């Protein structure tokens, strides 16, 4: 079977080439593939008895229970024969019908791909494999229905069909997963033996409903039936194949296949019978409303599908037999009628029966095929349709507690089907001769009449000698029932109730055909009712989804970074803060807080200053003043660190804050000086959010502080600092020795950030300063800057040197040095600063990194210690070691980082020494006015460790 599938897929891939090679005879050549498959299955069928089935399996995704396992039993054999046999006939037909179409190769590729997928569905033994092929059929049908892509209806309906069946398919997957859990396997053959256990499992109900949903959408059951008539926009060979015998029958196949596993319960019977009966009626009535041949065919197909679902729902021997026979009957006559409709369309240019009549003389062969198929559809002897209908009536009569209801529905639906058969066959081929433009009509070409005639004759043969079908039908029935069932097949069962029902059906049907025109008008008048139908629901649903999407986009994605931040903060305040309040056992005790504040008067005062400065920063309109106020906030925090005995942190904070204020003020030269005033409402929202987030973080901190503190970690570092790292400044020892690898990573990030900033600013055009040309700096500033430069550089080296034992270190020293150069830059502008530096500051990045890495390698080379292990030598009382060298690397990287950014910014903001006048506004002006002081927020954090 795997071989058959591979052959079929190969055939699909070769199709475009074969089309090109075969030219006019393309249809005939391409039909050889499915014909060979048909013969193969026929030969294999000899070995498939009621008891025996062939199973093949190969591993695929074993961890997830997906196996490439196939099974050939009666049911799959029957379907495989249908799929390949009709495939061959329709391949011939399509060759003629689409002759000369520029995309014929593509058509055959898709057609055979569909055939392969359909074969896969009916042969798969693994549920997931079945699903894969199932979705494959949806996909191929989407592309096939949309094949006539010149017309808008074709595209819309293709998408509709795909969405409906695709969504159903996903429900099916979910159902399969549940079924797999309930049954403990994904193999159908295994599940069939566990049917009883599965039916009493808790997951039976959801699994059944989901699988039924999948089957119903695929097989166009009410209320999902609407996609099928719309899909008639497809080329006719596609409809004949997909919408009569194969794709729409996939749902029927699935129900038949899962009958031994899920069937037989009240839920199964009632769900299927109700849906099927409703579908029968809706289809039968719909068929009479239309005058387009294909629409009539589509609705009558819906009726037939409903009949099949009802029969499978009854789920006992006779009904299963009836279902299998009727399935064959329908596949034969419906595909023939579709092909006939296509021929009529091809020869006359219309499918509207009102414009057609008396074609039998012009198209005798097609007419003969149509008559054979039509009689079968109407269920008249001696055609196969008669056998099917009799069996169906008998099966429905055999149900005890449904009494008269089902037979009544069946008779009504079948009578209307008889009328539909009349519309399809009698109207166009008999009566007065009528064509749309009165022109001469010819018989369809050989390729187009041979198919319907063959299928019609097969129907006649099966009707006359139903015994021919005994072996395949009985094997299929056994497979569905899950046990051997005694069946007999005959054209004539004698006079019984079913025969009376048949007679009534035909009589009613003929009457309905005679009164078709008034019935049609009446139905058309009722069309308003269908406005409330499921198709409207589908459209309204789709519409609603779009409106929801549009609303969501407007609401959440205004494009403003402020609202993004607001949403993020809101979530954090709610999620973290809320959890703390509800679960963390945090309670607010203001009295305790006040006591604490009184005990620390200086700190309290400082916090008040910081708070006031933050308020001012938020309220002021002038950007310059806001930045300065933010600087006050930062410096206040630095003072707090001093009071809390964290000198390293305080120094770092102090220097970073100063540099940020300077850089931000520099940037401000190119930005608007006053910012827009926000509407009161938004400011209120922001204030609430700010307070909420602030409160959350404070709460978190307070809660953390109340916890008993595990002092092992700090204790370890305090104890190990001097003996292990030869330094008394624990912070510095951690940075350059104990956790030097982390520091190395962080200075690497700094270096990368500097390169990034350099690239961005290099690519940019200089922005025009809004403050006009920079004023010539005062002499005092210049003189002071020279002095301070020297002083600060010395300080920075001092800081670097003493860092290991006293507050200081590479980070702080680097920041001192950078501040010195920045001060010089303010006094002497860019050109002279660059001359002073001689080398571009970014070279310090590379040298610094190299020094840091090199200091780590010393230990490796000398002592065989791991990378970045400190090595020390004693020079008198002085201990010198590689961590100090490492700190030099840190120093260089920090200097390089700061200066690269500042100098690059200066070039953009102030322009080259003699800026050419370029009338350009800085593009980020609009977005950046809110948070200028944060411009470096992300990259300076490592410095605050």
């Amino acid at each position, binding site marked *: 079977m795997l071989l058959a599938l591979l052959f079929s897929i190969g055939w699909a891939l070769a199709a475009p080439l074969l089309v090109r090679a075969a030219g006019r005879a393309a249809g005939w050549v391409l039909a050889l593939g499915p014909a060979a498959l048909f013969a193969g299955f026929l030969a294999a069928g000899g070995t498939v008895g009621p008891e025996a089935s062939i199973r093949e399996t190969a*591993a*695929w995704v074993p*961890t*997830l*229970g997906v196996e490439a396992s196939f099974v050939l039993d009666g049911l799959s054999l029957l379907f495989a024969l249908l799929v390949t046999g009709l495939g061959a006939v329709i391949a011939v037909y399509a060759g003629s019908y689409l002759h000369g179409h520029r995309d014929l190769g593509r058509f055959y590729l898709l057609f055979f791909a569909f055939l392969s997928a359909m074969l896969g569905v009916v042969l798969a033994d693994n549920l*997931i494999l079945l699903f*894969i092929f199932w979705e494959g059929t*949806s996909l191929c049908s989407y592309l096939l229905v*949309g094949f006539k*892509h010149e017309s808008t209806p074709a*595209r819309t309906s293709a*998408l509709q069909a795909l*969405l409906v069946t*695709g*969504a159903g398919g*996903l429900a099916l997957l*979910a159902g399969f*997963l*549940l079924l797999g859990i309930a049954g403990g396997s994904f193999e159908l053959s295994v599940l069939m033996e566990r049917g009883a256990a599965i039916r009493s499992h808790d997951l039976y109900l959801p699994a059944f409903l989901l699988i039924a949903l999948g089957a119903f959408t695929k097989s166009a059951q009410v209320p999902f039936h609407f996609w099928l008539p719309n899909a008639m926009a497809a080329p006719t060979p596609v409809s004949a194949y997909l919408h009569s015998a194969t794709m729409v029958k996939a749902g029927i196949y699935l129900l038949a296949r899962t009958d031994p596993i899920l069937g037989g319960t009240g839920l199964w019977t009632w769900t299927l019978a109700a849906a099927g009966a409703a579908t029968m009626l809706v289809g039968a009535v719909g068929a009479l409303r239309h005058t387009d041949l294909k629409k009539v065919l589509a609705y009558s197909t819906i009726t037939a599908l409903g009949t099949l679902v009802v029969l499978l729902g009854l789920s006992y021997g006779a009904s299963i037999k009836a279902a299998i026979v009727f399935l064959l009957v329908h596949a034969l006559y419906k595909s023939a009628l579709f092909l006939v409709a296509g021929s009529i369309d091809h020869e006359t240019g219309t499918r509207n029966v009102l414009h057609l009549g008396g074609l039998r003389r012009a198209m005798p062969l097609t007419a003969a095929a149509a008559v054979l198929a039509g009689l079968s559809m109407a269920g008249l002897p001696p055609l196969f349709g008669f056998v099917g209908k009799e069996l169906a009536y008998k099966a429905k009569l055999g149900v005890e507690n449904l009494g008269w209801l089902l037979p009544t529905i069946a008779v009504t639906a079948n009578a209307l089907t008889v009328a539909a058969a009349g519309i399809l066959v009698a109207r166009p081929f008999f009566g007065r001769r009528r064509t749309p433009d009165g022109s001469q009509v010819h018989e369809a070409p050989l390729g187009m009449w041979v198919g319907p005639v063959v299928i019609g004759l097969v129907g006649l043969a099966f009707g006359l000698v139903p015994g021919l079908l005994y072996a395949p039908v009985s094997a299929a029935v056994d497979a569905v029932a899950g046990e051997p069932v005694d069946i007999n097949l005959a054209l004539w069962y004698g006079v019984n109730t079913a025969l009376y029902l048949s007679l009534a059906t035909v009589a009613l049907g003929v009457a309905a055909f005679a009164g078709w025109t008034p019935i049609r008008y009446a139905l058309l008048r009722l069309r308003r009712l269908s406005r409330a139908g499921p198709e409207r629901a589908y459209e309204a649903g*789709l519409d609603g989804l779009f409106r929801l*999407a549009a609303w969501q*986009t407007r609401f959440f*994605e205004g494009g403003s970074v402020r609202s993004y*931040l607001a949403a*993020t903060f809101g*979530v*954090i305040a709610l999620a*973290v803060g809320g959890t703390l309040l509800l679960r*963390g*056992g945090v309670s607010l005790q203001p009295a305790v807080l006040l006591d604490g504040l009184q005990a620390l008067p200086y700190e309290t005062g400082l916090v008040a200053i910081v708070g006031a400065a933050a308020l001012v920063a938020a309220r002021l309109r002038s950007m310059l003043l806001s930045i300065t106020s933010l600087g006050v906030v930062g410096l206040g925090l630095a003072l707090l660190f001093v009071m809390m005995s964290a000198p390293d942190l305080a120094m770092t904070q102090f220097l970073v804050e100063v540099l940020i204020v300077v850089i931000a003020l520099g940037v401000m030269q190119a930005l608007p000086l006053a910012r827009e005033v926000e509407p009161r409402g938004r400011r209120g929202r922001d204030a609430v959010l700010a307070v909420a987030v602030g409160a959350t973080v404070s709460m978190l901190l307070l809660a*953390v502080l109340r*916890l*008993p503190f*595990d002092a092992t*970690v700090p204790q370890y570092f305090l104890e190990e600092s001097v003996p292990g790292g030869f330094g008394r400044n624990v912070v510095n020892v951690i940075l350059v020795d104990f956790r030097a*690898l*982390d520091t190395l*990573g*962080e200075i*690497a990030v700094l270096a*990368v950030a500097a*390169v*990034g*900033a*350099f*690239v*961005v600013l*290099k*690519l940019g055009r200089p922005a025009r300063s809004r403050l006009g040309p920079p004023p010539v700096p005062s002499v005092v500033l210049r003189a002071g800057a020279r002095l301070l430069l020297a002083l600060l550089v010395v300080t920075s080296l001092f800081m670097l040197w003493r860092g290991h034992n006293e507050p200081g270190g590479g980070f702080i020293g680097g920041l001192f040095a950078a501040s010195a150069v920045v001060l010089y830059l303010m006094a002497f502008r860019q050109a002279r600063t660059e001359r002073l530096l001689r080398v571009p500051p970014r070279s310090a990045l590379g040298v610094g990194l190299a020094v840091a890495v090199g200091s780590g390698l010393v230990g490796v*080379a000398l002592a*065989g*210690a*791991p*990378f970045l292990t400190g090595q020390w030598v004693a020079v008198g009382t002085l201990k010198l070691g590689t961590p100090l060298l490492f700190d030099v690397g840190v120093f260089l990287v920090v200097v390089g980082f700061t200066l690269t950014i500042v100098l690059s910014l200066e070039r953009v903001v102030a322009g080259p020494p003699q800026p050419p006048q370029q009338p350009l506004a800085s*593009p980020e002006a609009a*977005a950046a006015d809110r948070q200028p002081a944060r411009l470096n*927020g*992300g990259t300076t*954090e*490592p410095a605050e460790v």
Partner: protein
Amino acid sequence: MELARAFSTMAADLPAIFSMIVVSVVGLVMLTVAAFRSDHPSIPWLGVAGMVVASAWELFQLGTEPGTAFFGAIRVGGYAAFINLLVLLAGIATTILSVPYLHRLKHDYGEVYALLMYATVGMILLGSSNSMVSIFVGLETMSVCLYVLAGLIREDEGAVEAALKYFLLGAFSTGFFLYGIALMYGATGTMYLPAMAQADLATAGGTLLFWAGVALFLIGFLFKVSAAPFHMWTPDVYQGSPTPLTGYMSTASKAAAFGSLILVLYYALPAERWTLVLAVVAVITMVVGNVMALSQANVKRMLAYSSIAHAGYILVALAAGTEAAFAGALFYLLVYTVMNIGAFGVMALLEWDGREGRVQTLDSLAGIGTDRPVLGVTMVVFMFSLTGFPPFGGFFGKYAVFAPAVDAGLTWLVLIGVLMSAVSGYYYLRVVYVFWMQDRDDVVDARQASLGGLPPVSRTSQGVLVVCAVGLVAMAFFSGGLIEAATGFFDASAMAAAGGGG
């Protein structure tokens, strides 16, 4: 200590970061070449060569026993090699796709490709981190480069705005992340993931500290993988960034971040506490991503929302938290990377210059399949695969993610996921529909596009796309082996976990 031992220590540690070293060094070489001639045509190919060498190395590492290096800070072998390989392959594809794109925009500076290399280094570090500090360093290295790459096209106000938003929001998330790490360290006294799980929280009274830390830490991570409600930067940034680089951001950075998150969840956090939180985030993410993608007219924006939705699918597996689910997530990352790079790659090759700058509206691409059949066919494969239609890789990815979640009892979550996949069909197939089934002459935008002249299509770029598409089909056949291999990473690395940590 003698020299022999020195070399053996180095020999043990250096291979762990071999690919990082190669990529960084080649990046430096590229910078040096760029210093002489910024648009030297050999620069991107130097990068490609470097990354090819690195990925060959990682391919070799896939089968090796997992372990740790640098005092347990870096993971090596199996899992790490898989993530690294993914990142490197994405980097190679992106570089090749960027060459014609940036050349056309006259932004083909060598530094850009060097930045791409450094971003890759960050991702490799992130994906193979075994300690919180190296996670942070990797995350930042990657992010800083991406901030810059997002704003590359400075003439485009949208790009600048996007970069700024990315940077501002990213800086905040980094703050949360760092704060979270600090709290977790305070509670457990260690930075190493396996050791964190072994730390005794109850005695120190550190549970609140720890969980508050985890909450903040997760917020940082969820931001990076653009899970709702921290996703808001994604559409703006993806739309504004140069298209091939958007593909890179949406795949490689997510693969690395998810790879790291899985390690944290697997080693450091007990699963049961996070199932519900991650499940809720997954639901919001899937709904927001899929529903909002519906109403987008711009393909890049649509793909941005779709990438949010895909993050949601992966979160489903993370919520399930079993080894099979994590393995499924890994496989999903692989599939997702291939198809998303491909989709963005196609869009990059189809971008045309209109009056309003670079145009990527869907309507303007009506009937493009007929003119550019290779792009059209590969795009169909990518779209079907993104929807999750079999037989493409996307289906197997979704199945690998959803099936273990059902096994873990999260059926409700999977049902939502499946429903949302159905919704996603609409917007993905609309692309197929426009590409192949609409006629250019029916659509005003498309007529303008054809008047403006579509850019010529580079053969190498098309080759990359074809490889991606063929890969997606091939994955259907090899998914079994791939998923099994991914499951194997967890079995083996679970054993190595005891040895890791410091």
